[in-house]
Every structure is written in structure tokens, then in C-alpha cells.
């Protein structure tokens, strides 16, 4: 759902273009349109979906809306538990969320390629902004 809305919203300049990071022609609309790789889109869409593990609509039809609500609440609570501040050195362990989504039984390219903790970025840009993003403000 989020990607659909993102695709139709008017492009807005949210911050000045970082020429050092993206290059002189790295941040305009022309290059953004040309650099889309189909596998990149697949990866992003997959990262945002539940992975097919929780078909809430199917559960609602078969077992009733009560169970569907319970499962969705359980998953939301699992992603909020832990309480670590965002952007710090130690990442969240996500043990409960991994068990619910089945991630503890799977290993995929995302588990060893391009991990966020191995990225050569400069680290947390702004802890206040990171916390605001986490709370959805």
C-alpha cells in the first residue's frame, strides 16, 4: 500500500541534494527514472510485505475476525518490544518478531549481503529524527 502511494505523490525536495554522496547528476528526476532495476523493485516490495506468512484476510474468513485481530496485535507488539533507541550500536534482537514471521528458520541474501551495520555510512544522522521516524511522527 505504501509503495503505491509513494509512486503517485508529487516529488518534493525534502532536503538539499547531497552532491558528495550522490554525484553531480545523482539526485535529479532523470537519473532516478533511469536507474530502476527490476530486482531492486522486487527487493523493496518484498522487504515491506509480510512475506506471505500472515494472510490476515484468509484468517479472517476462516477463523473469524477475532483471531485475525489477535494475530495482527501480536505482530505489532512484537515489533515494538525491546525498546532500544534507534541508531545505536547494538541492533534490536527481534527474537519475538523473528519467531512469529518465521525469520529464525530462514536464511536469505539479506542476512549476509549489504547489512545496515556493515554499511560505510556515517552512522546515525540525527537521533531525534531517528526517534521521530520510529514513533511515526
Amino acid at each position, binding site marked *: 500500500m505504501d509503495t503505491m502511494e509513494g509512486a503517485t505523490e508529487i516529488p518534493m525536495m*525534502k532536503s538539499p541534494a547531497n552532491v558528495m554522496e550522490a554525484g553531480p547528476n*545523482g539526485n535529479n528526476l532523470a537519473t532516478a527514472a533511469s536507474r530502476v532495476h527490476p530486482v531492486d523493485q*522486487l527487493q523493496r516490495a518484498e522487504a515491506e510485505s509480510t512475506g506471505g506468512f500472515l494472510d490476515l484476510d484468509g484468517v479472517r474468513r476462516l477463523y473469524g475476525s477475532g483471531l485475525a485481530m489477535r494475530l495482527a496485535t501480536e505482530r505489532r507488539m512484537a515489533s515494538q518490544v525491546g525498546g532500544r533507541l534507534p541508531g545505536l550500536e547494538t541492533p534490536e534482537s527481534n527474537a519475538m518478531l523473528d519467531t512469529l514471521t518465521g525469520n529464525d528458520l530462514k536464511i536469505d541474501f539479506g542476512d549476509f549481503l549489504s547489512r545496515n551495520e556493515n554499511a560505510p555510512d556515517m552512522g546515525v544522522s540525527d537521533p531525534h529524527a531517528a526517534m521521530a521516524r520510529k514513533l511515526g511522527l
Partner: protein
Amino acid sequence: MSEITKSLNPDTKPSGFSFDNAHRNTMIEQAAMSSNAILPMATKTGTTIVGLVYKGGVVLGADTRATGGSEVAEKNCEKIHYMAPNIYCCGAGTAADTEKTTELISSQLELLRMNTGKESRVVTACTMLKRMLFRYQGHISAALVLGGCDVNGPHIYQIYPHGSTGKLPYTTMGSGSLAAMSVFETGWTEGMEEGDAVKLVQRSILAGVFNDLGSGSNCDTCVIRTDGTVQYTRGAVTPNETQPLRDAINHSDRLNMGPGTTVVLDTKFTPRKVSLEDVTVTEMET
């Protein structure tokens, strides 16, 4: 990602394949097309890989040449990869893709073995591979011959880069597949003995080695038997030995100069003196 079109924050960047260089790569391709420059090519295994089922198990075979464009990148690479104690997989296509794909599926099979406590089945490995390859829509260029023995007997599967599979009694893949398949079609019968099966696999790989430019060097074979034993022979047949050719080159003895060739007439050693009196300390003024 562009900050104008999407405010993708660094915390939610998906891990996995990184496409930061996708724009640069398209620019390089366009520039190379206009100026006829030579693009760097990923190392491929233009290959001959084969697999067949015999009376007591399966035999897998592969050549050992890896090419990068028109040059030989590796004369003795390993194309038969381990997946499980009872399952091995030959890979053709981009060398890195086959290597990493088989390693990933091998890890997934190990996780599943830990979870279920049972021996892995060949059809499980096949299903995991085809799901992954289809998910990446053929961009992972890995053509595989998967073979092994499980509770249901010996199996050979062929898996194409886009995710289609076939279960067959004998199969060949790679650029030398036609040469190898001609040998199989003439020689394969149902219920062969192990000696005959291994000889047939070696002949088919040699057919690929000698008739296809993308395949060469030696032949590796892997025998997986229904009783659980595995025999992986690296360099089962080596018809392309380079050592006799290298030995035949005449190197002049004057190029081999060991220590003592030049006579030492005189030795003089002068140590460099560093005394602390030469160091002056100047206080920094803030």
C-alpha cells in the same frame, strides 16, 4: 535513492543486493556502446555439466574451465558444489551466482535439517532453488544439475536460470551440453553398473571439453550412492596437462642466479647515529 522522489530513510533500507551502482552501470554501458570500448565481463562458466542415474545412485560430472569473455579465467575451478551430505550440485552460468546460490541453499537445507531432524531430500533442494531463481526473474544466471540420493532413491534434476526444472534420468547443461548429450543418448541404459556409469560421464565431459570452447581442462566426477557414501574425484581425467609443455621450454641457466654468483670483495657497515642532543623541545604557544 534520490531525496527528491522518495524520502527513504537509512534505517529501512532493505538489506540484500545493493543497487547503488545501477545508475553508474547504465552510464558505463551507454558510454561503451558509443565509443566501442570493451566492457569488463563477469566470469562465466561456459561449461559442460552432466548428471545421470545408475543402478546404485547418481553420478555427476563437470569440466573445470572458467572464462571471462574470451580468455580463460581459471583452468581448474570446482563446479561441483556441496549442498548436503547426500546431495551435490553442478553449476553453469555466472561463476559467482552459482557459487553463492548453492551455498545459500546449502545453509537453508542445514537449517531445515536442524529443524526437522531428518535427512534432506533432493526435491527439497530443487524446490528451494527454483523458488529463489524465479523470485529474481532470471537475473541470477545459474543453470544447475542437482543430484543426490535420499529415502526415495536416486534423483537428478535440471534447473534453469529462470526457475523451471525438470526431473530426468540423465541430463546435461552448459555450452557443451549438446556434445555431452550426444554421448549420453548413445550410451545410457537403465540400471547401469557404477564402472560403466562413471566411464560414460567421463566420455561425455571429454566430448564437451574437446568440442566446445567454453569448456576445457579436466573432468571432475562425483558418485553419490544410495547407501549414503559419496566419492568426489577432483581431476578424474586430466587430458590437458600443461606441465610437459612447460618442461619442454629451454630456460637458460644464466637466468637462474642464486646467492653467491657475484663474488663479495669487501664489506663495510656504518651505523646511523641518533643522539638525543640533536632533539630540541619547543613549547607550543597557544
